[in-house]
């Protein structure tokens, strides 16, 4: 490679482990797995960088990309800031009523998730814009002051401002924000016209409230990470839910875009792998310390959604039946997450049933077997007791394992109560966890009308490969790929993510009458903004690429179709080109066209992308093939595969041992950052990309 030597650093923080991947310019990857200690994430990553610098002298750090679950965890665990809402008179209850929505369940005992902001902190002020953005009732500053004082008295850290029709005229919101900054300078504030300048008050208010709820938490967190990494000059970049990265400065203001940050990175990496090896249909399955996630990958791309919800637990309902959580309108991959990770706690419910998750032991105290003070049994403890995970240490020996502590936790907390042996309980935990994760995979396959048996499972995350084969069995899937670096695979996604910024400008005009020269100038203005932003953040880059998009619909429809505006089109041709392509797109999408109907423009959009260096999985695989140590270990240990198979003597191999031969289970492949369990009836081999391929024996 002709580029100067440099190190690209990616780190992905999960509830339990932080994964660090550092790419040198030689294409080699250094990987690290460290326990997530929330107060010292940056410092711990810094130590990994220092180690990489020792191995690559003369290679300065050229980028720092970060994926994190901080935002989604704050929502799920209700750990966001104490937040207030200032809104238009008559509309304080929008956040609670949520358009009267509920999931489509016929359940008399259904409970709605409590609103992020309780009614006492949702305050109304006198003001009103018309639909055309004219001031109908001027903003009553005194009302805003009263609201500010009330919220101050209630100790809020953050305030969301959301007024009706602010997407047309944001002046009242701006005035209210200015008053807040003046009278309550220490509070954080965001306004709906900035966060989501789009029509529909509930969706806009909800997205803005989520943003405000997250700003203090995410801000404190990023401050700390940046401080601890200040020795490295590149600006910190954060993964967004849509698979692109943004600057940390941007993320502080718009944390709502990073809710699916960590999961998006994993999906992006899996999609890259699927693309390169030519898998048309795959499911990315990522099981970490706290949760498991599934994402459908079709034609090499993660499936996207713009109509998300957060805080509803598993998103299993259909696409028209949201209503359980908080509406969130930002572009994101369609990822389903369930509360089952290595650290998920096993417990016995009132009815005497064995349950797993969603509560997690986290990094501290962690599973009982980590011996960091945890006494409650977790999935990881079960996997140690079953003999699946190394009973002495994991993570290349850096995390010692106390198998006795795992046994004791399972025996005392569960075994006695359930009247079962330690093995039986541990296997039960494994099975219950599999069942929960099966639901996540079903939610992205069968519930989207896809047959999982036609898909290949790409399993990663620290615990994913432990469960992959039995999970695949549950779903009737017969092939599983465990990629190289499975425990830190999501972090690989951070290395392949492009810097992506989206710009939008509302243009409420008809296509028939719009001044097409002026319309093209709207794009020019967005390009200028993108260039300015890029120049501020990446002054050395001048290779920004653009995609110009336009949202069109027939008059009075309320959903748009987004079309690409050809790069070279002249103003004189624009109307004809867009008219023809809209009718065609409408017919293609919905099966009919109405050439007599007026076409309305909703907005113009610009997608600005700075491409990053890519990563070649075949190169990584080749590198692995050359360097893999074929130790042909002779180790074995006893592992329990259920009441029918019982405890079996099970070989322990390394990935390199599978390069030249397929090995039949039972088998355990131990790696630095994970353990691959190959049950009886399954066999394992390694392909040219370095993937372990598990296939069900006929």
């Amino acid at each position, binding site marked *: 490679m002709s580029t100067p030597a440099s190190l690209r650093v990616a780190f992905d923080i999960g509830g339990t482990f932080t994964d660090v991947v550092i790419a040198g310019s030689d294409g080699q990857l250094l990987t690290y797995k460290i326990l997530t200690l929330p107060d010292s994430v940056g410092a711990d990553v810094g130590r990994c960088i220092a180690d990489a610098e020792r191995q690559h002298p003369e290679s300065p750090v050229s980028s720092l990309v970060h994926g994190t679950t901080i935002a989604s965890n704050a929502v799920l665990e209700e750990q966001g800031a104490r937040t207030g809402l200032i809104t238009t*008179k*008559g*509309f*304080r*209850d*929008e956040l*609670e*009523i*949520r*358009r*009267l*929505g*509920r*999931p*489509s*369940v*016929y*359940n*008399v*005992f*259904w*409970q*709605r998730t409590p609103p992020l902001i*309780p*009614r*006492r902190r949702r305050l109304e002020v006198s003001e*009103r814009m*018309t*639909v055309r953005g004219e001031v109908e009732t001027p903003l009553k500053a005194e009302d805003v002051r009263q609201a500010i004082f009330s919220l101050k008295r209630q100790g809020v850290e953050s305030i969301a401002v959301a007024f*009706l*029709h602010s997407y047309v005229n944001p002046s009242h919101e701006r005035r209210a924000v200015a008053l807040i900054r003046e009278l309550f300078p220490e509070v954080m504030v965001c306004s709906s016209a900035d966060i989501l300048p789009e*029509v*529909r*008050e*509930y969706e806009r208010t909800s997205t803005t409230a989520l943003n405000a709820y997250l700003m203090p938490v995410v801000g404190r967190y990023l401050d700390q990470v940046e401080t601890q990494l200040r020795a490295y000059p590149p600006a910190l970049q954060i993964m967004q839910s849509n698979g692109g990265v943004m600057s940390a400065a941007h993320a502080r203001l718009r944390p709502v875009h990073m809710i699916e940050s960590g999961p998006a990175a994993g999906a992006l990496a899996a999609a890259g792998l699927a693309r390169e090896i030519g898998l048309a249909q795959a499911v990315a399955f990522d099981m970490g310390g706290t949760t498991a996630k599934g994402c459908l990958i079709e034609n090499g791309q993660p499936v996207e959604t713009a109509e998300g919800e957060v805080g509803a637990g598993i998103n299993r*309902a*259909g*696409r*028209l*039946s949201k*209503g359980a959580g908080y509406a969130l309108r930002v572009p994101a991959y369609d990822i389903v997450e369930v509360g089952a990770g290595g650290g998920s706690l096993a417990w016995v419910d009132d009815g005497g049933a064995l349950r797993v998750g969603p509560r997690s032991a986290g990094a501290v105290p962690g599973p009982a077997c980590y011996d960091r003070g945890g006494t409650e049994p977790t999935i990881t403890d079960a996997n140690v007791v079953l003999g699946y995970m190394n009973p002495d240490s994991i993570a290349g020996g850096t995390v010692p394992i106390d198998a006795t502590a795992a046994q004791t936790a399972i025996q005392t907390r569960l075994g006695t109560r359930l009247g079962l042996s330690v093995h039986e309980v541990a296997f039960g935990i494994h099975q219950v966890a599999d069942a929960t994760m099966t639901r996540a995979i*079903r939610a992205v396959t*069968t*519930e*989207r*009308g896809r*047959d*999982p*048996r036609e898909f290949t499972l790409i399993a990663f995350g620290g615990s994913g490969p432990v469960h992959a084969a039995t999970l695949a069995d549950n*779903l009737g899937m017969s092939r599983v790929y465990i990629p190289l670096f499975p425990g830190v695979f999501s972090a690989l996604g951070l290395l392949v993510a492009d810097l992506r910024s989206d710009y939008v400008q509302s243009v409420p005009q008809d296509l028939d009458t719009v001044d097409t020269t002026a319309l093209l100038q709207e794009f020019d203005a967005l390009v200028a903004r993108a260039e300015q932003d890029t120049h501020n953040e990446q002054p050395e880059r001048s290779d920004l690429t653009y995609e110009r998009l336009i949202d069109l619909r*027939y008059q*009075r*429809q*309320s*959903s748009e179709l987004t079309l690409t505006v050809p790069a070279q089109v002249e103003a004189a041709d624009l109307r004809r080109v867009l008219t023809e392509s809209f009718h065609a797109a*409408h017919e293609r999408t*919905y*099966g*009919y066209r*109405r050439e007599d109907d007026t076409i309305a423009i909703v907005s113009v959009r610009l997608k600005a992308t700075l491409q990053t260096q890519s990563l070649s999985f075949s190169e990584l695989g080749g590198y692995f093939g050359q360097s893999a140590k074929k130790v042909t270990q002779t180790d074995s240990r006893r592992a329990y595969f259920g009441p029918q198979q019982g405890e079996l003597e099970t070989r322990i191999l390394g990935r390199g041992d599978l390069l030249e031969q397929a090995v039949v289970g039972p088998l355990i492949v131990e790696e630095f950052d994970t353990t691959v369990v190959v049950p009886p009836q399954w066999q394992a081999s390694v392909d040219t990309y370095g993937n372990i391929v598990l296939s069900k024996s006929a």
Partner: protein
Amino acid sequence: MTGAFDPILIEVMKNELTAVAEEMGITMKRTARSLGAKEGSDFSTALVDAQGRLIAQGLTIGVHLGYIMGVMPWVLKKFGDDLHPGDVIVSNDPYGGVSHFPDIVLVMPIFWQEQLVGFAAIVEHHTDIGGRFPGGMGIACAEVYEEGVCIPGVKLFSKGELNHDLVDMIAANVRAPEDVRGDLDAQAAACRRGAQGVRDLLDRHGLEQFAACNEQLRQYSERAMRACIAAIPDGSYACTDLFEDDGLGGEGVNLRLAVTVAGESVRVDFDGTGPQVRSAINVPFNLTRACVYVAFRSILETDAPANSGLMAPIQVTAPEGCVVNPQFPGAVGARGMLMWRIIDMIFAALAQAIPDKVYAAGEGGANLLVYTPQVEAGVPSMLLDIYTSGWGARPDSDGVEGVTPMAAGGAMRSIPAEMIERECPVMLDGFGFLPDTGGPGQYRGALSVYRKWRFLGDGRVMLRTCRVKSVPYGLAGGKDGTPFAARLRSGEAETQLPSEMLIDTEVQSGETLLHIQPGAGGYGDPLARDPQLVLDDVLDEKISPAYAEREYGVAIDQSTEQVDRNRTTQLRATLRSELEA
């Protein structure tokens, strides 16, 4: 796989069919023109087999299930050997299986390898259908002839060719022709999407496997419903109610039903229900039956697919000529209020058998406003605005506030103010909770949700409230909910509108209308309510401190914002002795 039960294939097929039905719904929502469809989701989609039996349903309004099943026998009878690829049949005939004129059903036969394999169907509640009253839901009609355009099951498309004359004919007779034209387009597009989805499924699975799966899914749902019914103790559980009035301000209508459970089957009969009336509140029998299905679907705990198997163990009968089985040409446009009451009654009857699954009364069903502004020339932009309030309290928790009724299914949504204001000369001045409403109880009934409009043009308003005289009832010592109110404000003058299920009034530009929906009933003794929950309600301004003392005997110390334990004990003792005296 005719014989063997393949649990994975069944699960996949179930979800594939549902996904197709949902995609029909997405097509509808994205391409429709009326606010009710594109924002409110007041439509339902379904797939039907070649024999006319329901095999899958998209997300829907609960009772819509009944229309599709109701219309299929008519379609098969009339067009049995005259169905061709590209045909679409349209009907809104209440005496031909549908409900009331504004609900228009489209049914498209699906052909695969030149065989009829099933139908894609969609029903939508349209903005207007002509007739004497805007919205087609006026109460003061005696015969369907007054209620608008009847579309008696005719071809909207023949072999793919749109019958433009028919559409022009319909459009010329309605007050919202653009909505109706655009939505018919969208409905047809949804049907085509459904048909294509089913053909794709058949390409993959073949007809034999498809049919076998559908049969197994039907049996699966039937087993689930039979198990649900078997869990109800055998016996006959009756419920009677006196419905508000006959729709013309006369006497209340006697309603009676008996739910008779025998093993795995149930019969619901309406013997003893009063005769059909000379107003439009009559409920077509087809819809009466749907109410029963919806109620039983609500108590079914498993997530069984909505197909004809679900209905197999349920038999519904009603005497001919009674208000829930009216005879042609009795008017039915305003059937909504009584329809919701029937569902409440089935729950009340079941409460005798399974009290732990039944909750106090909610607002009584979907309420609505139809606003028709006068326009000098051209077409008025009508508003059809449908909304609800909240649930009655449950045996273990408060009623959910600001939500669609249990029996409405999960798809319905309120229309955003910002969308209403784009399209109609009206401003929404508020949509929220009214403090100190709902029924007190150990668990509180949902607060009343109010909605307030300001009209920007002279016009006519129809305002519907399902429970007007009968306030939502409480249960197990919980108090009844609170009554509805409607107030029209003109400048400083405020008029209380009459207590009528359907208010029909002129409005002037600049006037505001406030609709306070009924607050839901409470459950259990209010004096047994956890004082901490009362405090939370006070701090959230859901109830006032005075109300907390009066209804719950809970005193709040305003300075510390804590419960005053001593005064609470005293207050509760006093209130209890007053009750016992």
